[in-house]
C-alpha cells in the first residue's frame, strides 16, 4: 500500500447498519466458523480412527453442555451460510436487487436459519 492516508470505508463507528450489510459481514464470519466446524468433523473422524476409548471420550465432550452449545452454534452457522449463500446465488443470476426485496430476503434468511437449526437439532438427536 503506497498511500495509507486514503480514507477507508465503511467507518464502523459512524456506520448505520442495514440488514444487507449486517448479513454480508455475518455471511463471511459464519463462513469462517463453518471452516472450524469442518475441522471439528476432522477430529470427529480422527478420534473414531483412534479406537473405541478415544471415541467415547470425544463423544462425552461433544455431549457435555459446552459441546452441545458448540454443535448447535455450528448448525446455525451452517444453516445461515447456506441460506445466505442461496440469496447470493440468486443475486448472481441478476434477481432480487431491489432494496425492499433484498430486505425481505434478508429477514427470511435470518428467521429460517433459526427455524432450520431447531428442526435439524431435534431431528438429528432423535427428539422428534
Amino acid at each position, binding site marked *: *500500500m503506497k498511500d495509507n492516508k486514503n480514507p477507508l470505508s465503511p467507518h464502523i463507528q459512524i456506520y448505520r447498519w442495514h440488514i444487507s450489510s449486517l448479513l454480508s459481514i455475518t455471511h*463471511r464470519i459464519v*463462513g*469462517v466458523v*463453518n*471452516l472450524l*466446524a*469442518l*475441522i471439528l*468433523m*476432522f477430529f*470427529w*473422524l*480422527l478420534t*473414531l*480412527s483412534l479406537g*473405541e476409548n478415544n*471415541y*467415547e471420550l470425544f*463423544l462425552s465432550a*461433544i*455431549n457435555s453442555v459446552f459441546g452441545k452449545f458448540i*454443535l448447535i452454534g*455450528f*448448525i446455525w452457522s*451452517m444453516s445461515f451460510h*447456506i441460506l445466505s*449463500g*442461496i440469496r447470493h*446465488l440468486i443475486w*448472481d443470476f441478476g434477481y432480487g436487487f431491489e432494496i425492499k426485496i433484498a430486505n425481505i430476503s434478508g429477514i427470511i434468511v435470518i428467521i429460517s436459519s433459526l427455524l432450520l437449526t431447531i428442526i*435439524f*437439532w431435534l*431431528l*438429528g*438427536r*432423535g427428539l422428534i
Partner: protein
Amino acid sequence: MNETRKWILHRVTAIILAPLFVWFFFSLISLSTKNYQEAIYFFKSPLFTVLTIILFFIGFFHAKISLHEIFEDYIHNKKIKDVANILALILSIVVPIIILILLIYRI
C-alpha cells in the same frame, strides 16, 4: 488461477457443498447419540466413505478460495498475506488427504 475461474469455482463448489455438508453434519449429530460400533458401521458403507472424502476435498477448496478473498480485503501487508495464503493452502491440502487415508485404511 484467474479471478473469473475462481469466482465460478467458488459458486460451483458452494452448490455441491451445501447438500453434502447438511447430510454429513446431520449424520454426525445422529451419531452423537450412538456408540462407537454404530459410528464405525456408518463409515463402512463405500458410498458414505466416498461422499465424506468429496466433502472434505471440496469443503477445504471452497474455504481456500474464500480465505484468499478475506485475506485480500483485511490483510494489507503483502508478506503476511502471502504467508497466510500458503498456510491456508497447506491446511486445505493436508486435512483432506489425512481424511482420505483415515477412511481408506483405518476406519
